């Protein structure tokens, strides 16, 4: 039954030019409904037709069908037949050739290739086809056939030897298409590895290296996805494929290194480095001095950092390859000779530390030393004594500093030294170097003291170089500078050095540093001498925090810091700054070390409970105090951040214990659980609106614990707790407490287990709130209801709950509600912004991927429509909401939706509302970078607005933002900006005389860039 249908399809394909039918036929063959023989029989007349076009179509059809068959579908016999057939067809008219190649390409992919067929295909193609006269896609077929056969039939092709190489050279000679070049570049290394290229080495090199350096910019929206890098790296692999290329490759590279094109130089150096992976030392011999000249020129001139970096890496690579042959007699002199030349060339620059070439010469030597252990020894033995001598010879600070910087560079390089049989060459000069470095610490110039510290740390990082006594001595010196130095930059450097000590040589820090710091901390700083005014307990606490990088030290320092905090809370007078500092120190330590299990357990057992206790004490004892450090917002929130950081790392068991604990104290009022026998003035009822604000704001602590725990830690009687939180939010008037409460509510809803219980709770909450939103104006609860609504919306949007759509929908109606419209935009901020104290990834919130994008698409049409249809007074609420959307939505999403939004952004600039203007300008500034063409269309409107805002009297921030936007505009396409150049330059003369310095700075910057437009034009 199927037969007539597919034969019909066949006829249509061959005669018409429709590509249909192929699938019918190939499916038929795969389903065994059609025999391959039948197909060929029916195709026969077409394949032998006198009309070339018909032969083309017939051959094509056969190829198309073969491409669609499973790779093991055909038997060896069938494959052999078809290969013979196609090979024979290569002799046909040239217009048939592409289709034959297409068929052969299909054949090359079959698994049952008979012996000899691989060779046959390659031979016939190279005999009958002139590949380079074919079109791009057909040339591609030819390369692909080769790639397939090289992959599967290598053993068969190898005997072809030089013939294969020659035919490949002919195939790719003159290739112009980047897509095909990528393929050809992949073939060359395979040929080099498997065929004798000797006879054709130069030709093979020529035919590939003629593309060097690659100069290719993919067309915009390139559908083929060939990148410049792909070509560059492919060509690099070809040129570096075999040492046989060395004699042709190195002169070519040297030639390119001397060109004027920076990217050509860079590519040449990169390729050189690549070549060192395969070329041998002797291959470089005759080119060494020229290569070094090229590297030197780039490094000493320092024109382009990119080229300089490439040159230095190439130097390292070359030295490294010269060193590999050191066992052989001849090569030893090669390395020695090369290094000797480098040293000779660079040496005298090192004796002129006041001049510019000192640093680059140092870099060259360091790059060479990095090449191998031998090179490191040879160079350092020569240079370190020289630098030490220079140090003593020069007395000027800057010169000495330069010498030290370069010396330090060499010390750093020697870190790579891994000599198994030899000692680090620095060790030979260790005493001299350490003496110099230690002596620097008492220099009067601070730069030298800093250099000394950096140097000592550098020496300590070398394994097996410094002795234990020296390490201890270093620690003492560092500590002395931390405590006594008058210059703050030295003290900072010394603190960094101590931090290094604590992490690498912990026992020394524990033995020497810690006791001394603690002892200092006990002294009363009111009476200390005036010579070290920086020495305060705050400074010492910061130092303690800085060295807390190892568990042994943390377990010592954190209790000290905590004790300090507790002492502060007990004092009758309040010292906010000291308490804040103390908490900051604790927060930093916890933040950076809590990931380690040992530290976490320590914090859980010895810090968390204590922090909860002192905070509870401060909340409960509100009667006898008028103020308390922990009542202050910043400090309370900092404390919460420490608690949160610990809680979010707790295990399930620890988390469950915490929940039980915190519910007992906060909900059930069992404060004695934490306080023990400590005094309490009354009951602790943070969940009652009638409680004093000191207690209700404790909800932030509650939030930090209960919303930071793992999702699998369940909260018992969750829904009655949620009810309490809703009611509390509605009743509270203290805004900090209210915010903590509503965040807590949202955080819990976000993580509540999925199911009908949650769904029905949300439904009833929705109804309750809707009633309040409509009627709550009299009771004053409508604003609280709106706040709950917005936060719950965030919680639901984030987890992608089905009901979230209804919540968002309702939120959109706030704009047109005269009691709520001022709050309407806030909801957009709440949903889009990320808050670090609730519903973050670290707090294990349920966050659906791309929720911002979804919310953006969901609300944008409504906002635009609302803006267009509303009365003038309300437009700004929509614009503010829009500005929040734009600020937080991912860039790619924004760009695709941008064009219709730009007019709205322009409108936003006109509204006299500083925050809206600022956020709009921030958005526009970014857009000029991301979507230059779209913004470019509005320059006629935008420029006058920005110019006007650059003189906006009430706010310097607006003036600055406007000027920055104007400056950024110069990056837009020239043909758009140039017509405005005169106006802008003239108008920007005014803000140059602004009363604020920061505005003048931006004005000068922007005006300068507009002046420069003309040069950039070239």
């Amino acid at each position, binding site marked *: 039954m199927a037969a007539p249908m597919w034969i019909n399809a066949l006829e249509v394909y061959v005669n018409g030019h429709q590509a249909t039918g192929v699938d019918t036929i190939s499916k038929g063959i795969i389903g065994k409904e059609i025999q391959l023989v039948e197909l060929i029989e029916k195709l026969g007349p077409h394949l032998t037709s006198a009309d070339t076009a018909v032969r083309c179509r017939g051959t094509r059809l056969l190829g198309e069908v073969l491409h669609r068959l499973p790779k093991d579908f055909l038997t060896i016999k069938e494959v052999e037949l078809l290969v013979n057939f196609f090979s024979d067809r290569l002799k046909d008219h040239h217009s048939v050739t592409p289709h034959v190649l297409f068929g052969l390409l299909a054949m090359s992919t079959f698994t049952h290739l008979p012996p000899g067929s691989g060779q046959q295909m390659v031979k016939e193609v190279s005999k009958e086809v002139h590949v380079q006269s074919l079109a791009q896609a057909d040339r591609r077929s030819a390369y692909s056939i080769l790639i397939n056969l090289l992959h599967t039939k290598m053993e068969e092709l190898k005997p072809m030897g030089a013939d294969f190489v020659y035919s490949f050279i002919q195939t790719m000679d003159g290739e112009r298409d980047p897509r095909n070049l990528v393929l050809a570049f992949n073939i060359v290394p395979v040929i080099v590895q498997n065929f004798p290229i000797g006879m054709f080495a130069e030709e093979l090199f020529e035919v590939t290296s003629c593309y060097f350096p690659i100069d290719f910019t993919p067309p915009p929206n390139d559908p083929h996805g060939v990148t410049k890098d792909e070509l560059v790296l492919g060509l690099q692999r070809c040129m570096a494929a075999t040492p046989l290329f060395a004699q042709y490759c190195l002169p070519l590279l040297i030639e390119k290194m001397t060109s004027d094109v920076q990217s050509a130089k860079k590519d040449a150096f990169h390729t050189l480095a690549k070549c060192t992976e395969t070329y041998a030392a002797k291959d470089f011999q005759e080119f060494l001095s020229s290569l070094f000249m090229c590297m030197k020129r780039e490094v000493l001139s320092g024109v*382009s950092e990119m080229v300089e970096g490439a040159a230095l890496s190439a130097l390292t690579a070359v030295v490294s390859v010269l060193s590999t042959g050191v066992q052989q007699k001849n090569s030893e002199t090669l390395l020695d000779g090369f290094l000797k030349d480098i040293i000779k060339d660079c040496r005298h620059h090192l004796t002129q530390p006041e001049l*510019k070439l000192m640093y680059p010469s140092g870099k060259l030597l360091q790059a060479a030393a990095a090449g191998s252990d031998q090179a490191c020894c040879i160079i350092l033995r020569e240079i370190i004594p020289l630098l030490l001598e220079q140090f003593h010879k020069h007395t000027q600070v800057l010169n000495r500093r330069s010498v030290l910087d370069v010396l330090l560079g060499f010390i750093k390089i020697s870190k790579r030294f891994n000599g198994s049989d030899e000692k680090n060459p620095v060790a030979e000069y260790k005493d001299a170097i350490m003496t110099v470095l230690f002596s620097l610490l008492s220099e009067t110039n601070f730069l030298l003291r800093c250099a000394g510290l950096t140097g000592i740390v550098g020496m300590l990082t070398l394994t097996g170089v410094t002795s234990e006594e020296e390490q201890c001595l270093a620690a003492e010196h560092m500590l002395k500078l931390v405590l006594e130095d008058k210059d703050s930059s030295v003290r900072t450097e010394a603190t960094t050095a101590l931090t290094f000590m604590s992490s690498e040589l912990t026992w020394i820090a524990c033995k020497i540093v810690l006791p001394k710091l603690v002892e200092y901390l006990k002294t009363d700083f009111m009476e200390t001498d005036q010579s070290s005014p920086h020495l305060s307990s705050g400074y010492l606490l910061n130092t303690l925090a800085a060295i807390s990088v190892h568990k042994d030290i943390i377990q010592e320092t954190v209790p000290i810091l905590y004790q300090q905090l507790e002492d502060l809370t007990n004092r009758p007078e309040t010292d906010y700054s000291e308490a804040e500092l103390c908490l900051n120190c604790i927060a930093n330590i916890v933040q950076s070390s809590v990931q380690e299990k040992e530290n976490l357990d320590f914090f859980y057992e010895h810090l968390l409970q204590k922090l909860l206790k002192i905070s509870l004490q401060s909340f409960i004892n509100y009667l006898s105090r008028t103020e308390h450090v922990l009542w202050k917002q910043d400090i309370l929130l900092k404390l919460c951040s420490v608690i949160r950081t610990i809680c979010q790392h707790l295990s399930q068991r620890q988390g469950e214990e915490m929940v039980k604990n915190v519910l007992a104290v906060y909900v059930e009022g069992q404060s004695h659980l934490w306080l023990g026998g400590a005094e309490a003035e009354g009951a602790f009822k943070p969940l009652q609106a009638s409680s004093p604000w000191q207690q209700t704001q404790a909800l932030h602590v509650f939030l930090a614990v209960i919303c930071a725990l793992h999702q699998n830690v369940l909260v018992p009687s969750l829904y009655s707790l949620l009810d309490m939180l809703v009611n509390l939010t509605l009743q509270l008037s203290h805004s900090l407490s209210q915010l903590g409460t509503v965040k807590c509510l949202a955080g819990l809803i976000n993580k509540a287990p999925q199911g009908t219980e949650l769904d029905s709770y949300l439904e009833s909450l929705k109804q309750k709130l809707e009633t309040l939103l409509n009627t709550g104006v009299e009771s004053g609860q409508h604003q609280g209801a709106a706040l709950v609504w917005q936060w719950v919306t965030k919680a639901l949007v984030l987890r992608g709950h089905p009901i979230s759509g209804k919540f968002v929908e309702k939120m959109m109606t706030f704009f047109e509600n005269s009691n709520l419209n001022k709050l309407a935009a806030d909801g957009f901020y709440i949903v889009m912004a990320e808050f670090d104290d609730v519903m973050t990834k670290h707090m294990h919130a349920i966050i659906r991927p791309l929720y911002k994008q979804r919310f953006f698409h969901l609300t944008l049409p409504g906002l635009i429509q609302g803006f267009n249809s509303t009365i003038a007074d309300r437009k700004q609420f929509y614009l503010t909401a829009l500005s929040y959307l734009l600020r937080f939505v991912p860039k790619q999403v924004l760009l695709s939706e941008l064009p219709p939004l730009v007019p709205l952004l322009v409108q936003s600039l006109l509204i006299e509302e500083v925050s809206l203007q600022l956020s709009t300008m921030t958005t526009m500034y970014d857009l000029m970078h991301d979507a230059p063409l779209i913004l470019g269309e509005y320059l006629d409107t935008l420029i006058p607005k920005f110019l006007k805002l650059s003189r906006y009297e*009430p*706010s310097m921030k607006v003036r600055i933002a406007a000027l920055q936007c104007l400056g950024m505009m110069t990056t837009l396409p020239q043909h758009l900006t140039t017509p405005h150049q005169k106006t802008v330059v003239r108008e920007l003369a005014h803000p140059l005389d602004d009363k604020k310095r920061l505005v003048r700075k931006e004005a000068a910057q922007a005006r300068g860039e507009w002046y420069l437009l003309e*040069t950039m034009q070239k």
Partner: protein
Amino acid sequence: MPILENVNPEIHQKASAREITHAEEDDDVVDEIDGREIFDLIRNINDPEHPLSLEELNVVENSRVHVDNAQNRVMVDFTPTIPHCSMATLIGLSIRVKLLRSLPNRFKVDVRITPGTHASEEAVNKQLADKERVAAALENSHLLEVVNQCLSSNKTSSE
């Protein structure tokens, strides 16, 4: 690459960025233009020969910039790296143009060579002080391009 006159010049420490004070962030306080502000305008001008700034080469120094707000005058002295530096005029011109573009036009700006640091000090000073000659120089598109090169902020302009 053209041949450099002074291949291996001395390099100097750069000043740190000016710290922003509370007064500067207060909308109501008036900040007077001071020497440091003007120094900040010119210190990052590129040297015509080296990939270094005028500050790094000590060609301009904070202490050699003077402002008189009442008289609307600005005086800048610059020090060529070598006494025979043929780039002195070009450097002076770059400083002048930069200040012309960046300062309110109420100021009269004098750009001169630090006394005793250049062989043809007087001639160069005369050239720089002559308004017509400066204007004429800037009409020359090649010269303007070189000056703009010095004033451009991207350092890889040679690419």
